[in-house]
């Protein structure tokens, strides 16, 4: 196989694409997937969309807090997560529902998290995912540290880190990529360039024409990939992961995609982008082309699609029932995880809280203060 990182060097201006927006497969770098694998990808994308839409519905009904939808970005997430080995680690930001589910994170965790329940980030043992990181651009450093630990122990574990176009403006992004370059850590950095950081278009984020070329500053490979193309996303991620595993150091992938929905449920995207722009991107979104390809190749049909959809809906409904039965926080939950052993001051404060709650509530917590517009 020719080295795609040389062929698609960022300064060539080329974008790595295998399945184009019309569902046409370009053979050159095309991966060989089994039918089962292809159907599996389809299942994940549908599952992700059903879960995503359900979260939006729950939010509208007041059953979930602020939620950040993934719609439109499943291509790179499914491609990259599928290219990982079981022992590898995923470091998500906050919009990686599809990637996280593929890596084995129960949807219940994701729902609990956005419902504002601390249990959401209690990642089950054996699921190699780091928790959601809200401060933008800060977690690539953790991913570098994790990969560094793997390298020091000669474990052959690769760490894949997701973040957005906005994240590339943060100092921590720079320090992370710079460390990765210096220590040649087994990292794959995946920037989902979904064109906007909330309302801010990439043109205002940086005057670098591509994000991929930022890799040049750190002395390792960068590549621009069509993030709505599962195949190209898979192949590029796989190449980067293999390289990292074999000691070739980090790779930076710019996955060009588009967030079809709002930034979060608190955002109104019509303030900053036109319907025409969204429609343009809708034509290029990952499911349309992939489904076209699968149907044309007769890998799936209506019956299969209907079955996958209803399976997904059932599973999601079950998850909702399950998470809505999870009890709310107790005072102990607030204090118990601050340190491995609770220090005296926290014990005293916990006792005070318990005492104050046991006192008969003489006046109710007033309703005068309704919150503003959270992000």
């Amino acid at each position: 196989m020719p080295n795609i990182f040389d062929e698609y060097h960022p300064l060539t201006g080329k974008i790595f694409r295998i399945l184009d927006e019309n569902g046409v497969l370009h053979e050159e770098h095309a991966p060989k997937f089994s039918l089962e694998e292809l159907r599996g990808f389809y299942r994940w994308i549908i599952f992700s969309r059903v879960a995503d839409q359900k979260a939006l519905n729950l939010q509208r009904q007041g059953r979930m807090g602020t939620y950040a939808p993934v719609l439109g970005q499943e291509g790179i997430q499914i491609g990259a997560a599928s290219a990982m080995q079981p022992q590898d680690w995923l470091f998500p930001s906050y919009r990686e529902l599809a990637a996280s589910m593929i890596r084995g994170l129960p949807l219940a965790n994701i729902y609990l998290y956005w419902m504002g329940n601390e249990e959401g980030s209690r990642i089950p043992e054996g699921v190699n995912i780091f928790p959601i990181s809200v401060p933008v651009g800060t977690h690539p450093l953790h991913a570098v540290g994790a990969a560094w630990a793997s390298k020091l122990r000669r474990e052959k574990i690769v760490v894949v880190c997701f973040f957005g176009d906005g994240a590339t403006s943060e100092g921590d992004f720079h320090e992370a990529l710079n460390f990765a370059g210096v220590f040649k850590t087994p990292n794959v950095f995946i920037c989902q360039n979904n064109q906007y950081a909330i309302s801010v278009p990439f043109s205002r984020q940086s005057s670098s024409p591509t994000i991929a070329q930022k890799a040049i500053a750190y002395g390792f490979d960068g590549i621009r990939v069509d993030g709505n193309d599962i195949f190209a996303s898979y192949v590029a991620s796989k190449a980067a992961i293999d390289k990292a595993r074999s000691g070739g150091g980090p790779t930076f992938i710019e996955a060009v995609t588009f967030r079809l929905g709002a930034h979060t449920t608190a955002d109104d995207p019509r303030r900053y982008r036109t319907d025409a722009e969204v429609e343009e991107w809708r034509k290029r979104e990952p499911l349309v082309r992939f489904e076209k390809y699968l149907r044309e190749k007769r890998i799936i049909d209506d019956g299969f699609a209907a079955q996958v959809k209803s399976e997904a809906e059932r599973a999601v409904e079950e998850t909702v029932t399950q998470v809505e039965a999870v009890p709310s926080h107790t005072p102990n939950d607030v204090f118990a995880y601050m340190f491995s052993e609770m220090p005296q001051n926290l014990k005293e404060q916990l006792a005070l809280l318990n005492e104050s709650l046991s006192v008969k509530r003489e006046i109710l917590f007033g309703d005068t203060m309704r919150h503003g517009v959270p992000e």
Partner: protein
Amino acid sequence: MVSPNRQPFAPNRILIICHEEGGRIVAELNLVEAVNAAMREEMERDSRVMILGEDVGRAGGVFRATEGLQKLFGEDRVVDTPLSESGIVGTAIGLAAFGMRPIAEIQFMGFIYPAFDQIISHAGRMRNRTRGRFSVPLVVRTPYGGGIHAPEHHSESTEAIFAHTPGIKVVIPSNPYDAKGLLIAAIRDPDPVIFLEPARIYRSIKGEVPEGDYTVPIGKATVAREGESVTLIAWGAMLHVALEAIEALTDEGIDVELIDLRTISPLDSDTIIESVKKTGRVVVVHEAPKTCGLGAEIIALINEKAFLNLSAPPGRVTGFDTIIPLPKGEHLYLPTPERIISAVRQVMEY
């Protein structure tokens, strides 16, 4: 004309003195609208004033604090920046030192820390470092505090860190009138001001806000309610939790004096000490973690200046030395009227 005794927020029997300095009432505004009005008027008045931050332009800010301002003043003066807090504050320091009057918005206080080095190492030191040759007339605005059911890092209340930082002022309004007057004062201040806006009461608290030019002085607390039995000290959203507690306490015959600090750095020790000398009892309320919070400083100050006047040990009702929980748990963390009531009772019964 604004009556100095008018009541910008709800509960009865509460006296709010607004340091009014002219102007005409035009509207009942909420706090975020008052903030918006202050910036709009100052930008009209002074072409050096500009706003920079994430999503402040096109989108008008995630809380709509800068709504409409880019349309009015153009993209050069209301600037959507890269997602880069240190960049925002660091370039604003340069802008301020070179003749502009930047207002930097940090989207939430939980994201101010990447800019902390620029604040503590440069904004707060430039005047001193250069013996007055350069100064940094900069305002850093940011929503802060809990109770808005938001994700992790969106409910921070670390004002004490800034109060401990030399060379900067820290201002926190609790109502729309003060928000506008304090923000105008902050914009005109020749030194850096951290302006913390209690997100929880951005929309819930309305009040009459005069149109046009007035300032509320930085560095002066206000007695929000006069009383004889005990001094309650609060700021920001906690003022309103305190007011709820006061309603119940008044029914019990406890006559609470409520101080709204408004500026937490420098502290208005005169107003605090005068009140404590009268009441002899004091409870401080804040939502920040307890240890090394501002409550501690206020108590130490009272010890220094009014020790013999104390009839009981000063009380603190605060957040805990934990992380403020996600929405399902934040009611357990934030001070409640109940916790204030029991702290006041304890101080009264001492």
